[in-house]
C-alpha cells in the first residue's frame, strides 16, 4: 500500500504532532526503517516502514500539530508501483483544534451557597454522626489562574506533597523509569530518586499489602494502580487491611495512604479493562473515596488526600487526563474532601454527577440551558463521605433529580443518591428521581456496542425532559 497514514498509537489517541521526518523524498526504505517521529500527549513514538520502497512524497510538513489519525502523511512506492490518486483529504482533518470540554460551566467554583441543616427530629441514640464538610477556601484576590491538564495537576500535587513531607513516597508498576504508564508520575523519579519513587514487580496484592504495612508504621504511601482494574488483585488489602484497621485496633493503628490510578472506561479495551469502581469503594466504611473531574479539583483534592491520615481511594479517569482547566497558582492549593461543587446554579432540575459523568452532564446542561431549562449541576467530587447536604438543598429548590454515572445501575451512586433524597426530601420531589448509568452489561469491545453500553449526553437530556415533564 503506497500511502503511509498517521497511526493511532494508543486507545485514546485522536491526533498527534508529526514532529520529525527521518526520511526525505527519494529515499529508499526497508521494512523496519524509522520514517518519522510522532508526539502524542503521552509519548514520542516512531513510525516504521512496513514494506520496502521509495519515499515518493511527504504530505505533511515536519512540526505539524493536530494531525488526525488516518491522515495520509507520505507516499511510499514499492518496486514497480506508480503514484496513484492521492486519497481525498477532508478539509478539517488537519489542525482542527478540539474545542475542549471545559466550557464556562467549569469555571472554578465560586459563590457556593452553604446550606444550613434543617431542624430534625431528635436522632435515635445510635445514629451515625453526620460529617459536615467545610466549604472551598476563598481564593486570594487576583490570583493567577493557570491552564493545565488533569495529568499535570495530579503530577504537581504529588510533587508538591513529596517536597513538603519526606514520608510521602510513591510505589507502583512503571511509576519510576517509564515515568508512569499514563505519565502521571513524570519526572518524579528524577526529582525524588529511586528511594521515594519505586517501580514494583507486577504483584498488586503484594505491593499494596506492603504499602499498607508501611503506612501502619507511619509512612505515607501513594500507591499507583496502573488502572483500578488491577487493584482487584489487591482489594483485600485495601478493604480488609487499610479500611478496617483503625476500627479493629480500637483507634490505635491507622493507615495514612492514598490508592490512586485511572478508573472507569477507557476506550475499546474490553470487559476486563473497563469498569467503574466508584460504587464498590464508596460502599466501605473506613475508606474515603474521591473522584474529581476538573484539573483544579484533581490538584486540590489529591493534595488533601495525601495529607489525610485516612486511607483514600482516589479515582482518576484516563479519558480526562488530557483535558484542561484553570488551576489557581498558589503555594498551597488544597481543597476540602467531602464537599460537592455546584458547577452551575439553577432552579428547574438538579443534575448530580462526578468524574467522567460530569462530561456528559456538562454537555447536556449546556444544551438544556440553551433550550430554556434552568439546570443546577452538582459535581460530587467526593463519593464518601457523600455531601448529601448540597444535593438535598438543591433538590428542595428544584424538586427534580437526575443522576449521571458510568458505572452499573444496581447498587450504584445514583441508587444511593435516590435513597438519600427519598429519605430527606421526599415531600419536595415533583417527579421520581431518574438515573443515567452505564448499561447493565460487561463492557463489549466492538465500537458500536461500546457506544451503546456507555451513558450519553442524549440520555441525560431525555431524563431531564422526563422529570420536568417536557417530553
Amino acid at each position: 500500500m503506497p500511502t503511509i497514514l498517521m497511526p493511532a498509537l494508543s486507545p485514546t489517541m485522536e491526533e498527534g504532532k508529526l514532529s520529525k521526518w527521518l526520511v526525505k523524498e527519494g529515499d529508499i526504505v526497508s521494512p523496519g526503517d524509522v520514517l518519522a517521529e510522532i508526539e502524542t500527549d503521552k509519548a514520542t513514538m516512531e513510525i516504521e516502514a512496513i514494506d520496502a520502497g521509495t519515499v515518493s512524497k511527504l504530505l505533511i510538513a515536519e512540526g505539524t500539530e493536530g494531525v488526525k489519525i488516518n491522515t495520509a502523511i507520505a507516499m511510499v512506492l514499492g518496486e514497480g508501483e506508480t503514484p496513484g490518486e492521492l486519497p481525498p483529504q477532508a478539509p478539517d482533518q488537519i489542525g482542527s483544534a478540539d474545542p475542549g470540554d471545559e466550557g464556562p460551566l467549569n469555571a472554578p467554583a465560586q459563590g457556593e451557597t452553604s446550606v444550613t441543616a434543617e431542624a430534625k427530629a431528635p436522632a435515635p441514640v445510635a445514629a451515625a454522626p453526620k460529617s459536615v464538610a467545610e466549604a472551598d477556601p476563598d481564593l486570594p484576590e487576583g490570583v493567577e489562574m493557570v491552564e493545565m491538564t488533569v495529568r499535570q495537576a495530579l503530577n504537581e500535587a504529588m510533587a508538591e506533597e513529596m517536597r513538603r513531607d519526606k514520608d510521602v513516597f510513591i510505589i507502583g508498576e512503571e511509576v519510576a523509569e517509564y515515568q508512569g504508564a499514563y505519565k502521571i508520575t513524570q519526572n518524579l523519579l528524577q526529582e525524588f530518586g529511586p528511594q521515594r519513587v519505586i517501580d514494583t514487580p507486577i504483584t498488586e496484592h503484594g505491593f499494596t499489602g506492603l504499602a499498607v504495612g508501611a503506612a501502619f508504621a507511619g509512612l505515607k504511601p501513594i500507591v499507583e494502580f496502573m488502572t483500578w482494574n488491577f487493584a482487584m488483585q489487591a482489594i483485600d488489602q485495601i478493604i480488609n487491611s487499610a479500611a478496617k484497621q483503625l476500627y479493629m485496633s480500637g483507634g490505635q493503628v491507622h493507615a495514612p495512604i492514598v490508592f490512586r490510578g485511572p478508573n472507569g472506561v477507557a476506550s475499546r479495551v474490553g470487559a476486563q479493562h473497563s469498569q467503574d469502581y466508584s460504587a464498590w469503594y464508596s460502599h466501605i466504611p473506613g475508606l474515603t473515596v474521591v473522584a474529581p473531574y476538573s484539573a483544579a479539583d484533581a490538584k486540590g483534592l489529591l493534595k488533601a488526600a495525601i495529607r489525610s491520615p485516612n486511607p483514600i481511594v482516589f479515582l482518576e479517569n484516563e479519558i480526562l487526563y488530557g483535558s484542561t482547566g484553570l488551576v489557581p497558582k498558589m503555594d498551597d492549593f488544597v481543597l476540602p474532601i467531602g464537599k460537592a461543587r455546584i458547577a452551575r446554579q439553577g432552579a428547574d432540575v438538579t443534575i448530580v454527577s462526578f468524574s467522567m459523568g460530569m462530561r456528559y452532564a456538562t454537555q447536556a446542561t449546556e444544551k438544556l440551558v440553551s433550550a430554556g431549562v434552568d439546570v443546577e449541576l452538582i459535581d460530587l467530587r467526593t463519593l464518601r463521605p457523600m455531601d448529601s447536604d448540597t444535593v438535598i438543598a438543591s433538590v428542595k429548590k428544584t424538586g427534580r433529580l437526575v443522576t449521571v454515572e458510568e458505572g452499573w445501575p444496581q447498587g450504584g451512586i445514583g441508587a444511593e443518591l435516590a435513597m438519600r433524597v427519598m429519605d430527606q426530601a421526599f415531600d419536595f420531589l415533583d417527579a421520581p428521581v431518574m438515573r443515567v448509568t452505564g448499561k447493565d452489561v460487561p463492557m463489549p469491545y466492538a465500537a458500536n456496542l461500546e457506544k451503546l453500553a456507555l451513558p450519553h449526553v442524549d440520555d441525560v437530556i431525555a431524563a431531564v425532559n422526563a422529570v420536568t415533564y417536557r417530553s
Partner: protein
Amino acid sequence: MARKPAAVAVPNIPELTEAQELQAYRSMLLIRRFEEKAGQMYGMGLIGGFCHLYIGQEAVVTGITMATIEGDAQITGYRDHGHMLVMGLDPKGVMAELTGRSGGLSKGKGGSMHMFSNEHRFYGGNGIVGAQVPLGTGLAFAAKYRGENTVSLAYFGDGAANQGQVYEAFNMAKLWSLPVVYIIENNKYAMGTSIERASATTDLSLRGASFGIPGEQVDGMDVRLVLEASERAIEHARSGKGPYILEMLTYRYRGHSMSDPAKYRSKDEVTKYRAERDPIEQVKARIIERQFGTEESLKAIEAEVRAIVNEAADFATSNPEPEASELWTDITVAA
C-alpha cells in the same frame, strides 16, 4: 533489512523432519505476517484499545503446539493472536475479533485480549496478568477429575511470574499431581521493566523448585528446541507425574502494545535479535540448506500466507459490526 542465515550446527539439537520444518516455517510466517497486518490496521484505527503483537516469539507457541494432541487445552494472557492461529483457528475470525466485527471469534465482544474457542479448547485471551495460571491449572484439574488423558498448557510472561497466584497454583498442581505444563514466555521485559529490575532471581525455570516441580530453560527462538522440550514436558504431565515448567527464552521485537515508545531498551538489542536469532530465518536457512525447499518454493509459501492474511484483513474490514441486540446477550446462560 538483510538478515543473516542462522543455521549454526550445534550438537544435540534434534533434527526436524522435512514435514516438521515446513510446518514450522508456515506457522511462524503466518503469525508474523498476521501480526504485521494487525499492527498496520491498528495504525489505521481499524483496531482499537490494546493490541499486543507476538512478533519475535513465534517459535514458542509453534513448537509447543506441534507437541500437543487433540484435546489438549491451552490458555494464555493478552498476547494471544499467535496461539489461536497455530491452534488452527480461522485467521478471518481472529482478525475480525480484532476489528470488533460480528464474525470475530467472540462475536466482536471480546477484542484482541479476549478470544476463545471451546471447539479448539483455547481458553483465552486473558487481560489480567497472572490470572491464566490458576485457570490453566483448573483445566488440568478437570482433566484429572474426569480421568481424561489431556494436558493443559498455561502460558504466562516473565512479568506475570511475579504474581502471587502463580505460586498458589504451582503448589496445588504439584500437591494434586495435575497434568499441566507451565510455559513462561520470558521475553526479558514486562512492559518497560526488565526482568532484572523486577525479579530477585532471574532463572524462572527454578520457580517451581520449592514445590518440587521440575523445570528447564529452553532457547525459545529455536523451534527445534522448543518442540523437543515440550514433548518431554507434556509426556511428563500426561503420564501422571504432575506439573512441569518450561522457561522459554524469547524476545518481542515490537513494543509491549501499540502505544509503547520502547525507551527502556536499545535499538541495538532489538536489531541483534532480529538479525541473529530470528526464529523464522533460522528455519528458512535450514530448509534451504537441507534442500527441503528452494528460495522459490519458500516464496510460494510466503505468497500463500500473505493471501490468507489479506483475506482475513478484508473480511475483518467488510464484516459488519455485531447487531445492537448483542449488547444484552451472553451475560448469563439461560437456565
